[in-house]
């Protein structure tokens, strides 16, 4: 028996399932599934791919070769990979193919409100959802069995709560790894080819036609029947008053708050075990659905003609970001005491690490009132109102195309700049760059080269000097790639050389051509760069204009001292001595 969080347990499950290949892209909360798989199970080939779509395609190819394969991403990443998933859905599967997807319920890490189970409905593929670490490991193994038995890709939905909750797991200490391999089908084609065959060659027994045909609706029908007997769907018949259909961690919230309730705990949330649902419905007076995320179980159960109470009692986002035991108690336990958080406690907006190269860029953009689009990852912190450096920001890799669109619409009257991190650049931003070149655009792109994917904890990318499969000769240089794509004007500047950086950005913005400014500085948190002496603020010279505070640096604070007077000061423990704030102060109050 060992203690594992959900991410560790999923990795262990992959190992015990005999997975051969794991590919994917970092994304909170499920990044560590890959990290643990790579650290602990060297038999499994691991790669961080350039983006989620590439990662899933790698896994699909490995699965066709017969080996059990795993793709890892967050739900927002699956949006990128959705085309690949649609291609695999309904096609012939040799080695089991499982996509582990992290749903960031509760917006703990500030994600949009997504629910991966929509893909289950759309593509008609099974979705499993664990309730704790033991479940995560067990369902991982089950997911591969289902994938092979019913010839389908399978999604394992994990949430931010599962990923970051540690509990006991029973593992087979004696287990010896063996890569499982099964080649059943000589071809595997998307539904485009299969449905064409189905329509034109119904009833044909010609082997060339039969080979192409996969009766995927029949497989899913069989799974829907069989799953009534799966032990991962547990019907616990207790009291006759309240019945609850639930999955994931809400199962445990329900058990704790409603110990007498009859519960159907779904391990497989799609397709549904219709017989078990009807049995529970007949047993109880009131039937509730308690599910994190969207009202997907609820709608699917109602489609079976079973009436349940769900979001009418538990309104979804924005009223609720995720279930908690408190929410269930408030609605279903009469006379439960009400407890509310103290009012007026200030909230914490995300702030960049002290010394982050992003801060140097946002300072220059603001100083010269340069309009710009931000990307995601650490750079998006510059969009929040305490920094307020960007006016447009959407998704990973988007900023280059966003600024290009703005510039063509405004006939290039102003240069709307794109800022993008190196991770976003390699993921999909590079497509935006190619696009603006061959469409003869004149945008400026600032690429922040910090040698890793900083926001998710410093995973490697194509231009990193480390990585699971790293070899120096395979490292991609951002400047060389930009040159090869056809960018006319490329400069590379150290972030801390602020005057050079300022000139480089101004020159690029004013040039009547496309341009890239590469801002180099390794991520200060990932690479633990040595600190210089901290700066401090002379309180006699400080006018409290707050120019330094608006840099958005974590080390610059404003609070009451023990004498009750508000002071702006630099936190010596956090300051790295980069000196950016001293260049921003108009009163020379910030010094070494």
């Amino acid at each position, binding site marked *: 028996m060992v203690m594992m969080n959900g991410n560790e347990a999923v990795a262990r499950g992959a190992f015990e399932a005999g997975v051969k290949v794991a590919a994917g892209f970092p994304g909170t909360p499920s990044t560590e599934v890959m990290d643990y798989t790579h650290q602990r199970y060297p038999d499994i080939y691991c790669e961080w791919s350039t983006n989620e779509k590439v990662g899933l395609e790698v896994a699909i190819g490995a699965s066709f070769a017969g080996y059990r394969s795993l793709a890892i991403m967050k739900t927002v990443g699956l949006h990128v990979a959705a085309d690949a998933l649609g291609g695999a859905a309904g096609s012939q599967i040799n080695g089991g193919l499982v996509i582990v997807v992290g749903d960031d319920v509760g917006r703990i890490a500030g994600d949009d409100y997504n629910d991966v189970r929509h893909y289950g409905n759309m593509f008609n593929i099974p979705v499993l959802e664990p309730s704790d670490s033991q479940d995560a490991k067990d369902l991982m193994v089950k997911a591969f069995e289902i994938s092979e038995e019913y010839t389908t890709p399978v999604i394992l939905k994990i949430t931010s709560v599962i990923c970051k909750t540690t509990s006991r797991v029973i593992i087979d200490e004696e287990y010896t790894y063996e890569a499982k391999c099964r080649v059943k089908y000589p071809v595997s084609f998307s539904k485009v080819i299969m449905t064409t065959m189905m329509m034109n060659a119904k009833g044909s027994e010609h082997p060339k036609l039969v080979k192409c045909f996969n009766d995927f609706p029949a497989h899913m029908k069989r799974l829907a029947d069989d799953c009534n007997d799966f032990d991962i769907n547990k019907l616990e018949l207790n009291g006759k008053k309240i019945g609850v259909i639930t999955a994931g961690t809400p199962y445990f*919230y329900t058990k704790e708050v409603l110990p007498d309730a009859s519960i159907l705990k779904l391990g497989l949330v799609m397709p549904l075990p219709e017989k078990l649902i009807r049995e529970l419905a007949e047993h109880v007076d009131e039937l509730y659905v308690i599910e994190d995320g969207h009202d997907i179980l609820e709608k699917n159960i109602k489609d079976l003609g079973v009436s349940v109470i769900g979001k009418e009692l538990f309104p979804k986002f924005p009223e609720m970001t995720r279930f*908690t035991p408190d929410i269930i108690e408030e609605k279903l336990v009469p006379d439960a005491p009400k407890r509310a958080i103290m009012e007026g406690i200030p909230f914490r907006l995300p702030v960049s690490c002290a010394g982050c190269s992003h801060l140097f860029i946002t300072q220059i953009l603001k100083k010269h009132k340069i309009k710009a689009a931000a990307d995601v990852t650490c750079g998006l912190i510059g969009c929040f*109102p305490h920094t307020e450096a960007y006016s447009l920001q959407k998704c990973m890799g988007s900023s280059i195309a966003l600024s290009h669109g703005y510039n063509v619409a405004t006939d290039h009257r102003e240069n709307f700049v794109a800022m993008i991190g190196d991770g976003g650049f390699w993921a999909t931003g590079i497509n935006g760059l190619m696009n603006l070149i061959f469409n003869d655009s004149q945008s400026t792109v600032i690429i922040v080269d910090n040698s890793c994917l900083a926001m998710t904890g410093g995973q490697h990318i194509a231009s990193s000097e480390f990585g699971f499969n790293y070899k120096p000769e395979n490292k991609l240089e951002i400047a060389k790639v930009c040159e090869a794509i056809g960018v006319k004007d490329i400069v590379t500047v150290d972030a801390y050389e602020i005057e050079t950086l300022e000139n480089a950005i101004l020159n690029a913005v004013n040039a009547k051509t496309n341009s890239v400014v590469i801002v180099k500085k390794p991520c200060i948190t990932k690479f633990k760069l040595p600190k210089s002496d901290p700066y401090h603020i002379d309180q006699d010279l400080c006018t409290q204009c707050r120019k330094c505070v608006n840099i958005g640096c974590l080390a610059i604070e404003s609070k009451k001292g023990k004498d009750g007077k508000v002071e702006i000061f630099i936190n010596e423990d956090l300051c790295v001595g980069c000196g950016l704030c001293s260049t921003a102060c108009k009163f020379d109050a910030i010094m070494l």
Partner: protein
Amino acid sequence: MQDTGKNIIIAGVGGQGILLFSNLLSKFYMKLGYELKISDVIGLGQRGGGVESHFRYSNKPVLSPFIKAGDADYVISFEQTETLRYLHCLKEDGVILSSTFELSTSSVNTRLEKDMPESKTELIRKSGKKTFIVDPDENKNPDFDISKMMNIVMLGFYSEYRGYNHDEMIQIVKENVPEKFVEGNIKAYEKGWAIARAELVAKESEVSNC
């Protein structure tokens, strides 16, 4: 086994070693044979964002990974704004162990919202719960960097308060922190233990004087 289990909320901001604290505690309770569930909630703020850990140990299987408001036996917090966020989670006889350290919030720094007018330390004291406050500035020590090791100071305090075997807890610290930090961490642990000893003696004499 007299103690059937407790619910502990451990809170603070990123970089304060909250996860190490809960990891060390989990090793201790595992050795005692308890069931455990520990759920970490880590915000977006990189360094400086709020972090909370829901730590539950019990002699029965633990169900919910989150501690329901009103069910917490302890709030152990390394940052006093964060302490305030969890006061309503405590049981009537719950105990607060809070640092006076404060990392001002970005929204107050940039005047997007006003800070609370009252002293946060006083708000904690006025909660009506059994309260212990540790001021890192008053406990600065040349033997270790208290700004980095407040988590271990609090661990020493908590162990003394609970009457645990210090040798066992120190052994767990030794086994789970990097070699070069072991010495400083042991000093930090002993400091926390000493502060608790003094506080408890003071509280007892308060009671006996009544």
